[in-house]
């Protein structure tokens, strides 16, 4: 609690002269008592860091990994690996990575020699990586200029009409970023999510799944609905905002439009599902538990459990498999996205990209349509 509070204060402080990322006034957000801006601990810990001093920290981290790592000097390695074993007993057979050094009885000089070669190797790779990073960043900037929806559905429509097929179900992995960064904090992820919803509606895709590991979106549905409504009224004009439905499979809830607008059950332009880590492996575990109970009560036969049965159940619990999954991070990491639902899903992400931008969205659709997208590669 102290930490989140500290963050809230810090944020105010940081953004004192700009716009407020976190507003202390909306106490109805989560209903928590002490701090108005409450994010569960895992999310809060992810908000640390940010892009300040990245270069210095990178160099520090890498050099530390090369030089300040003494676990391989023979005396300590045995104790360490024993500790490893005790800790990992439950999950793995604990094959510690240092068996090599023990088995070949390496002396200290040989060890130092390899460490020095490694330092040289890492140094060269680091220089290459820096160049690559700059190249990718400028490429992304150019792409951002090339593809700019400027808040008009017609422009998006024009981009999409050229494609010979579009996915019927789209999914995206979003992340809560450190508050100090561009597009960070809760406001940032809400903004990203509603931008995506607007693009998806404009592109004519009817289903969108938004995934974030900690379920921040699931916990802030009211804010999300308002943010989507605001964005859509910018895109379509306040008079004809399309209807949208928000589904939270985990709570088995469907919400329509902005809060307070009632349940308009007429045709919706888009159905947005909010998913989190909870809908992935945990849900499969829940299903196993339920099936185990049914089996022990003799209501279900173990041999009747098939891939098809599990598939039907999980489709009901979580939803359908998406055709295309967009990831807005620097290198593909599925972040615990429901495993059952990524069997044949196409992935798209841009290397070293860290922003939710329209260029990634449209290039993802282009890749799905089978166009050649590797411009400049």
């Amino acid at each position: 609690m102290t930490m989140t509070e500290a963050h809230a204060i810090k944020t105010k402080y940081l953004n004192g002269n700009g716009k407020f990322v976190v507003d202390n006034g909306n106490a109805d957000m989560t209903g928590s008592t002490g701090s108005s801006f409450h994010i569960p601990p895992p999310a809060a810990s992810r908000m640390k860091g940010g892009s300040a001093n990245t270069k210095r920290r990178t160099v520090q981290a890498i050099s530390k990994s090369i030089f300040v790592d003494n676990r391989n000097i023979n005396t300590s390695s045995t104790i360490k690996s024993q500790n490893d074993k005790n800790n990992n007993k439950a999950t793995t057979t604990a094959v510690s990575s240092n068996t090599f050094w023990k088995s070949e009885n390496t002396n200290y000089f040989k060890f130092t020699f390899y460490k020095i070669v490694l330092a040289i190797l890492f140094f060269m790779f680091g220089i290459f990586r820096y160049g690559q990073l700059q190249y990718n960043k400028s490429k992304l900037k150019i792409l951002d200029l090339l593809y700019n929806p400027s808040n008009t559905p017609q422009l998006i429509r024009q981009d999409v009409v050229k494609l010979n097929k579009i996915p019927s179900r789209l999914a995206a992995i979003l992340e809560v970023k450190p508050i100090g960064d561009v597009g960070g904090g809760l406001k940032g992820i809400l903004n990203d999510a509603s931008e995506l919803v607007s693009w998806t509606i404009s592109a004519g895709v009817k289903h969108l799944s938004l995934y974030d590991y900690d379920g921040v979106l699931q916990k802030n549905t009211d804010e999300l609905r308002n943010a989507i409504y605001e964005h859509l009224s910018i895109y379509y004009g306040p008079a004809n905002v399309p209807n949208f439905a928000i589904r939270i499979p985990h709570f088995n809830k469907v919400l329509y439009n902005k809060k307070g607008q009632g349940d308009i059950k007429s045709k919706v332009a888009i159905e947005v599902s909010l998913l989190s880590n909870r809908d992935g492996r945990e849900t499969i575990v829940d299903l196993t538990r339920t099936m185990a109970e049914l089996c022990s009560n003799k209501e279900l036969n173990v041999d009747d459990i098939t891939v098809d049965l599990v598939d039907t159940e999980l489709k009901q619990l979580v939803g359908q498999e998406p055709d295309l999954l967009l990831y807005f991070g620097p290198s593909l990491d599925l972040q615990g996205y429901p495993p059952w639902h990524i069997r044949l899903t196409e992935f798209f992400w841009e290397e070293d990209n860290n922003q939710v931008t329209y260029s990634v969205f449209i290039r993802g659709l282009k890749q799905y349509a089978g166009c050649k997208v590797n411009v400049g590669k």
Partner: protein
Amino acid sequence: MSEESKIPGHYFVLSLLKNLFSRTLRASNNVPRHVGFIMDGNRRWARKNDIEVKDGHEAGFHSMSRILELCYEAGVHTATVYAFSIENFKRSKYEVDSLMDLAQRRIRQITENGELTDKYGIRVRVIGDISLLDKDVLKDIQDATERTKNNTRATLNICFPYTGREEVVHSMKEVITENYPLEEINEGLIDSHLYTGGLPPLDLLIRTSGVSRLSDFMIWQGSKRGVTIELLDCLWPEFGPLKMGWILLKFAFKKSYSNNKEVIDEDDGEEDEEDEDEEGSADKKKYT
């Protein structure tokens, strides 16, 4: 790396470099412990080079053994390769038969030559729904597993015939038949009943031929947070040790950065440190 060259000692120098490289990587302590491969593009490669499909698969096999050699040398403990999907049974009878035949020969090749398996102490396991296979293929598999079962330094999983969904359901069924009390059923339990249970968790997943899908390969393991997925544009037979070495270097570089980043972040952070965070970084340190 296998280009022809007339310079004397060419191969010697190459293997020396390879050795130096892999041992250096080992010294970083940030080599993936478990690597998964989707070996895609053998047929396309054969078509591209105007040779028979069979030879394309042969080339793919050679490229696999060279890559595995580098991996094991660099300290990878487990490699899992996707040889045959359950979905492949839906192809024509002729094609299925030839694929079966090929896989059977591959398994024999790996163990009978014994070169790779003995040199690196590799235990060969065939994972998947083996009840779908013919009797004589099953026998070969049993022979291969039997021959190498005492090797402990490394593991090679051959997925044959396999799908990720079948693996998950298989694990669920095992858990259910073993009658665990309901409250004991958790993620770890399902994890340990997968075909890859008891092996180090998947760190790196590589797919060739420019397709950006998992195609039902290790969906449970690969979707976890922190698993690096590399999708490459080249066809599998073109994917040599050089490219693999590059990926390993990239992985080690990234890993050693992210392992230490948290620690440094904490040193930098002024007042807002929490017990939870410290625990997290202690966990990270363990793997450093």
